[in-house]
């Protein structure tokens, strides 16, 4: 019985969260603007998790992650807006078109991730970081050259399909998938590479292969997040996805704590909401980024490993012992260390 509850409780929690927010909206405690801030926070959480997979769990420093986001944003928007005509899509086709767009965004980003991952992931540490930075900027420069999608002026008139429910759904899905990834052979291989690449290699782990898997997987998630973003903003532009965006994402990740999904959620949420919240204090408006910056520096000085510093909420962990619980699927078994011998 216990495992069943453990599996269902989080899902119930998410549903409850959704209805709570909708209720707060209906009694005007939250307005659509607040909800929109939460939607951006959701997108940022997805981006942070994606970055965490590469930086936090595989130890490969990617500092141009906004590049993947932009590919997803453009890929998805091209599908929904240019191929299917944006606002003129028949109402009953909107959701399929939207999902198709997101899938396209994810695939484009993933494919590019594969393409650039193969040559660059051979580089180590800072050099890899720098190449990913360059990659992000080259993507931006390329998008700026393509006239049919508005070049540097950007793409307008993207239908605002993304709503809070979609964002919540994708954030939860990302969390589940990322958690499962981490607690599997793939995740372990990635962590091994992070902890000691030479040893990983010597233990028969094809380091290049697993780096690429993690990179492509993360790029796919970033692409989907980019697609969601485009359909909140209804406007995208290459310059939105500049190095500044990438470094914002890094900030969410490291302030939250690498190697912890809880940290990604916390970092993405807090640091998206904080500057927006400061906006509402009229005379602080000019100081809001200063306050944000000081907060960030203080977090890093007092918690150099980030707010969560490698710690994880039990919900986002897969405990080894669970393997031996009577699962809802299989009939086994007892943990070997508990068998008397």
């Amino acid at each position, binding site marked *: 019985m216990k495992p069943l509850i453990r599996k269902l409780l989080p899902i119930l929690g998410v549903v409850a969260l959704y209805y709570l927010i909708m209720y707060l909206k209906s009694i005007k405690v939250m307005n659509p603007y607040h909800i929109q801030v939460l939607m951006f926070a959701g997108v940022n959480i997805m981006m942070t998790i994606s970055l965490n997979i590469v*930086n936090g769990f595989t130890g490969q*420093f990617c500092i141009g992650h906004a590049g993947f986001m932009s590919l997803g944003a453009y890929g998805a928007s091209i599908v929904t807006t240019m191929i299917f005509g944006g606002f003129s899509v028949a109402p009953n086709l909107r959701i399929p078109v939207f999902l198709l767009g997101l899938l396209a965004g994810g695939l484009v980003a993933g494919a590019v991730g594969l393409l650039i991952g193969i*040559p*660059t992931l*051979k*580089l*180590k540490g*800072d*050099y890899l*970081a*720098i*190449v990913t*930075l*360059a*990659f992000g*900027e*080259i993507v*931006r*420069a*390329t998008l*700026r*050259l393509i006239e049919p999608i508005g070049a*540097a002026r950007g793409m307008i008139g993207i239908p605002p399909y993304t709503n809070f429910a979609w964002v919540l759904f994708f954030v939860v899905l990302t969390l589940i998938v990322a958690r499962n990834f981490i607690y599997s052979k793939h995740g372990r291989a990635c962590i091994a590479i992070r902890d000691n690449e*030479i040893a990983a290699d010597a233990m028969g782990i094809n380091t290049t292969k697993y780096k690429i898997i993690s990179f492509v997987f993360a790029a796919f998630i970033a692409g989907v997040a980019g697609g969601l973003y485009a359909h909140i903003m209804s406007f995208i532009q290459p310059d939105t996805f500049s*190095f*500044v965006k990438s*470094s914002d994402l*890094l*900030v969410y990740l*490291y*302030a939250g704590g*690498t190697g912890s999904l809880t940290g990604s959620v916390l970092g993405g949420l807090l640091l998206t909401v904080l500057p927006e919240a400061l906006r509402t204090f009229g005379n602080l408006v*000019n*100081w809001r*980024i*200063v306050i*944000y*910056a*000081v907060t*960030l*520096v203080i977090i*890093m*000085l007092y918690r*150099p*490993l980030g707010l969560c510093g490698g710690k994880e909420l039990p919900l986002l962990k897969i405990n080894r012992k669970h393997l031996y619980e009577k699962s809802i699927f299989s009939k086994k078994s007892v943990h070997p260390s508990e068998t008397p011998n």
Partner: protein
Amino acid sequence: MSTLMQFLVYGLQLGSVYALLALGYTMVYGIVGMINFAHGDFLMIGALGTFFLAQAFSSFAVNGTYSGLIVALILFTAMVGTGLIGVGVEAIAYKPLRNRPKMSALITAVGVSMFLENFPRALPFIGPSPRSFPMLFPTKRFQIQGVMISTTQIIMIVLSLVFMFILYNVVNRTKIGSQMRACSMDKDAAQLMGININRVISITFFIGAALAAASGIFYASIYPQVDVYMGGWLGTKSFIAAVIGGIGDIRGAMLGGFIMGITEILATSVNSNLGYAIGFVILILILLFKPAGIMGKLTIDKV
């Protein structure tokens, strides 16, 4: 042909700005092992500081320009001042993280950069708007075989080479230089050699920030517009320049800076959108073939 030469002049002019900024990146990276993302903002502080200094000295100006002595005084003050700010930033924000994971310091640097840009921005007497940078000294233009050159350009290019030459010799030939290199490899062991690593790191930041200020003054002299955000993008490009040359190597920073400046101008002449990205393309190409940049040496971990 003369157009090409003209472009080369513009390339060198831009390149000297990148090069000076890249020197700071390279020094700090080489010695402290961190990418100081706030480095570009030292450029802004230098330029903005010069702007205010020039205002303060405006009673000495004749026809809007200043005498050589006053200019030298202004530049010196701006460089030293920025250098000291660099030392202060290190002491407050980076020093406590010295033995922490690299990325923590990097993120702190992002925070510092936001602070350095937005603090003056929030101050009423500075604010976010661009200002026009005063002409500090009169510039003369002359033509050599159809190529326009100005005295400002010559001063810039020559001075940046001089700075690099001095710095190179300091790092490779002096005692403080060898202390810097020791710090760069193993701070504990360096201390056991009797090296005061705090002093070495402070000096490093001082030099880096002062050179950034110089590059800021140069930059503002040729593009006379200063604002609190001017350092960000220039910083990123100069950092790329430093890596192209081989980060950690002084000559490499200089080389990378000039490569960046010249290719940017040449690529712009093909298509304006290319100029902006060419540096990044060059970077990737170079790293694929020389994984540590042109002058950099990749060290192999002995297993």
